[in-house]
């Protein structure tokens, strides 16, 4: 899988993640802001998050185990309601972490 060079530049990661979220959840990109709650506001389901991981895999050109997303969410949202805690910004953080590995 070819690696998308735009993800190497972290200043573009936020915009890339916004675009991926909008495409996976089939909502206008204007509705996807850093603080947007993907479950509560955009109706994301668990399988949608796997699609987000797949899009990041395709962009980064490497495999990302589904369990790594699960572990990341668990560690970053401990004690919080996932419907509120999983935001676009959280996905961006995950993308940046995966890009740096």
């Amino acid at each position: 899988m070819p690696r998308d060079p735009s993800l190497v530049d972290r200043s573009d990661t936020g915009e890339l993640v916004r675009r991926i979220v909008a495409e996976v959840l089939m909502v206008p990109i204007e509705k996807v802001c850093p603080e947007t709650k993907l479950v509560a506001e955009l109706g994301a389901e668990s399988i949608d998050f796997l699609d987000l991981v797949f899009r990041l895999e395709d962009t980064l050109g490497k495999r990302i185990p589904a369990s790594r997303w699960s572990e990341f969410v668990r560690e970053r949202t401990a004690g919080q309601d996932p419907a509120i805690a999983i935001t676009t910004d959280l996905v961006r953080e995950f993308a940046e972490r995966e890009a740096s590995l």
Partner: protein
Amino acid sequence: MGSAVRVADGIWLGMFQPERLVCPRGHARRLADRAAAARALTAGLKASSLRASLAAFSLSHTEGVGAALVGPRSLGLGVDVVRVQRVSRRHAWAILIPSEWQALRGCPRIRPALAWALKEAAAKATGEPALHFPSALRIVRSTGDRLEVRVLCTPPLVFHGGWEGRGLFLYAWVTAPC
């Protein structure tokens, strides 16, 4: 319309599918989904004759369709509903090991969707879905050809699995053995 089927002694699966599937997006989707789950729960409770305060239940919803597994309060149970075509082999292989894919070999048309929905249902039944999904759950086919989901914890948990297809959607559930 809401409907219910008995899936085991004292355990009912409530289902709701609108007459015409409409898939809103964004927040409207979440509202429609939750309403569908509520209607499925109503159907399940009615069929079980259990009062809500005396019942255990698990809910699931997707694309305006709802599912509710209802049983006696002490039971561990979990349910998931998914549109069969929504789940690809890529989704399934992301959450399975090869032996699990093999355990589902008798269900070729729904295999990826069944893999996904069984694991989701089992994760809910543990009470800590984020902790267990997907790697701490194992789909196996037991002696007697029954589908089970085993939770890799101490002590290990075993759930009995089942499923029902309705149109485009698959309902999968797990229950703790009595």
